């Protein structure tokens, strides 16, 4: 009886979740309300948290509330501080949430909202949240050490170095693809460019204030910064309308690329208090505030989904990115379902702040569920806008042409009826000259967010404001990531190259710092540049590379956790990490292989290179190349992309071999061979 009443509420919640998911999955033809998706996701999250994460905590990890965590053992009030779990939850969530969970689902919406939604929900429960939770646990038991260190100590030196190289390359790809999103959002948009440029002096003013006028008063200056940001958006609207000012802030993709590259270099060698830190304050608070605001507004507005549940593009012929449902949807939605990058956070600051092992469940598993909810909001935002507008914004000019008439005609033929007037009007509503081919996800998300926000605040008249607010919100934390990522990449590079050239390792020497920074910026800058000049729009080649590498990192993290489980002699529970790791390996290896060797030039890098090479041999020029040099560059770039994909495949396959060897060895051994820090009780526990 007791057991029945204890579980009754959870049975009810399961029923609600299944019913909502059924409604989402089985509705055909009629429009459904976005709240069905939200309800399905939230109830499944709650049930998974209540049962599956508890099972992992109690049976698989056997968390011990009496065991001292690194924060307790090394408490110094600075790096290691036992922290209240709700406060730490906020810290962890702010660190893992970024552009990834917002952009991936928007791109995945070209197949309809259903495939993406299902993968976000199932993926987070089985893979993403498990990874974050497991890595947090493994790192907490090992003094909060980083993923690279953990791989080195549990798998060996060589796999450690391979993982480090892999992580550096992933970082480069992430920076390039994030920067590409900003370029796509700001190209030919004086309003957007002005507001984003205005964040630089605003942040510097905040930095000076925090350094010299009132040090440490982060709250008050962030509030001032926020007011200035809103003012910048309003002034941006005036700039865009002014005949003298607008041309000064109107740039094409290539110009913006060069600006971002120079900016990335300068920003990452400036003192951190001047630009990076204050902008991080702004972007973090704006990010959390906007996410909370979007969730509240979405529930209040309860919009209908206008995108079909499943579109014809599941066959791989989609205009936004090419490739069939399997494996590409599973790498397009990376963060939000499972993200390897979180393994770096879960083995970064969070384990050093955890006050008790038992709270790892809420922080690790719970934090990732929250991130997944952000991805759900993104897919809803992309599905509430007119599908015709969605495809107009996300298809390359090579497919839909450069005029609204042409675009409307092509898109209507796909079955998403749209008129040129609607496309022109939408651009006008959001204060832009054109919305055609604004790929990258951010502008689409901004239109969706603007529709939702403007229904709560300000109506149609405020659409343009909210659109640019959303663009600013995304650009701000992407720029922060470029700056912080370039710094992090520089340290990684100094560390890696220091193995061969010891002089580079001196992090206080200016020549060595500038060399490493320049190398790092050049690496992501080149990939960004080739994305901007890519014949298919860049997102088509770079986003899959990002997704593949990010999901492979998740696979590596889960393989590490598998080895640890074998070493702890808990192999009977190892399926908890083996199942998601296998799925990620199957998806990423298939996707990687197809991106390299697929015979369709829209999918395979080599096929596209061959196509341009063949044209070169015949002496022809293929659009968008306008000269022989550009043709040769496209051939080279696609060979480079193919090499990168092969490199990632090599990393993951070699890690798999090391994992199998280490697991078998641990399995044959009768003793526990994991390298945890010895048990130490929490002082005066329970007193």
């Amino acid at each position, binding site marked *: 009886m007791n057991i029945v009443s204890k579980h009754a509420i959870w049975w009810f919640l399961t029923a609600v979740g299944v019913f909502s998911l059924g409604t989402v999955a089985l509705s055909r033809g009629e429009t459904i309300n976005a709240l069905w998706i939200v309800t399905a996701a939230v109830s499944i999250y709650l049930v998974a948290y209540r049962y599956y994460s508890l099972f992992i905590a109690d049976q698989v990890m056997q968390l011990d509330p009496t065991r001292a965590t690194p924060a307790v053992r090394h408490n110094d009030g*600075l790096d290691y501080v036992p922290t209240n779990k709700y406060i730490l939850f906020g810290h962890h969530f*702010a660190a893992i949430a970024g552009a990834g969970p917002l952009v991936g689902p928007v791109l995945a919406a070209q197949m309809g909202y259903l495939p993406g939604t299902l993968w976000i929900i199932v993926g987070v429960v089985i893979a993403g949240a498990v990874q974050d939770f497991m890595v947090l646990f493994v790192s907490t038991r090992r003094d909060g050490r980083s993923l690279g260190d953990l791989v080195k100590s549990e798998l060996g030196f060589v796999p450690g170095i391979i993982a480090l190289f892999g992580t550096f390359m992933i970082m480069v790809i992430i920076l390039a693809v994030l920067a590409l999103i900003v370029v796509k959002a700001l190209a030919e948009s004086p309003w957007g460019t002005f507001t984003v440029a205005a964040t630089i002096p605003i942040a510097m003013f905040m930095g000076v204030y925090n350094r010299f006028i009132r040090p440490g008063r982060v709250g008050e200056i962030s509030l001032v910064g926020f007011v200035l940001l809103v003012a910048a958006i309003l002034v941006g609207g005036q700039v865009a309308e002014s005949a003298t000012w607008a041309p000064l802030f109107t740039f094409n993709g290539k110009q913006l690329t060069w600006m971002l590259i120079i900016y990335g270099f300068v920003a990452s060698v400036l003192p951190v208090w001047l630009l990076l830190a204050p902008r*991080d304050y702004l972007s973090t608070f704006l990010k959390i505030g906007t996410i909370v605001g979007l969730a509240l507004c979405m529930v209040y507005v309860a919009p209908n989904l206008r995108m079909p549940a499943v579109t014809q593009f599941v066959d791989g012929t989609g205009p936004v990115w090419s490739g069939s449902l399997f494996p590409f949807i599973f790498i397009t939605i990376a963060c939000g379902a499972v993200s390897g990058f*979180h393994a770096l956070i879960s083995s*970064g600051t969070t384990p050093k702040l955890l006050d008790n092992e038992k709270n790892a469940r809420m922080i690790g598993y719970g934090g990732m569920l929250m991130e997944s909810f952000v991805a759900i909001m993104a897919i809803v935002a992309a599905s509430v806008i007119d599908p015709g507008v969605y495809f107009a914004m996300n298809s390359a000019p090579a497919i839909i042409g450069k005029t609204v008439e042409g675009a409307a005609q092509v898109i209507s033929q796909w079955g998403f009826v749209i008129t040129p007037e609607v496309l022109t009007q939408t651009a006008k509503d959001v204060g832009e000259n054109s919305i055609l081919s604004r790929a990258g996800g951010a502008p689409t998300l901004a239109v969706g967010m603007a529709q939702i926000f403007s229904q709560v605040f300000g109506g149609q008249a405020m659409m343009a404001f909210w659109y640019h607010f959303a663009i600013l919100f995304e650009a701000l934390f992407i720029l922060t990531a470029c700056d912080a990522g370039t710094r992090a990449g520089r*340290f990684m590079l100094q560390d890696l190259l220091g193995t061969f050239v010891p002089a580079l390792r001196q992090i206080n020497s200016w020549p060595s710092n500038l060399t490493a920074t320049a190398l790092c910026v050049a690496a992501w800058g080149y990939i960004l540049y080739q994305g901007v000049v890519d014949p298919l729009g860049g997102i088509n080649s770079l986003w899959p590379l990002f997704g593949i590498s990010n999901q492979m990192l998740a696979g590596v993290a889960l393989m590490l956790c598998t080895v640890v489980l074998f070493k702890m002699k808990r192999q009977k529970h190892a399926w908890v990490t083996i199942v998601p790791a296998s799925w990620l390996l199957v998806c990423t290896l298939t996707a990687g292989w197809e991106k390299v060797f697929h015979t369709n030039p829209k999918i395979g890098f080599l096929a596209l290179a061959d196509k341009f090479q063949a044209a070169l041999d015949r002496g022809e020029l293929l659009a968008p190349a306008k000269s022989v040099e550009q043709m040769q560059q496209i051939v080279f770039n696609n060979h480079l992309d193919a090499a990168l994909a092969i490199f990632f495949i090599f990393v993951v396959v070699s890690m798999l071999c090391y994992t199998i060897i280490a697991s078998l060895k641990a399995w044959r051994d009768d003793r526990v061979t994991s390298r945890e820090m010895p048990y130490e009780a929490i002082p005066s526990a329970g007193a």
Partner: protein
Amino acid sequence: MFNDLARFGTYLGQAARLMVGLPDYGTYVAHMRATHPDLPVMSETEFFRNRQEARYGSGRSGGCC
């Protein structure tokens, strides 16, 4: 009730500061007094600069994609 509200506000402030890598200064001072009474304690400004440098200067920080 006002006490609860005030405590909630304090928590919210601490959470917001920790999101950008600033742990609680009071906790640090209390820790230093309790465990290292012989060592000098950083002033609030020094503490702020120390934490800013630790979060951004080392390159180990940063958020996600």
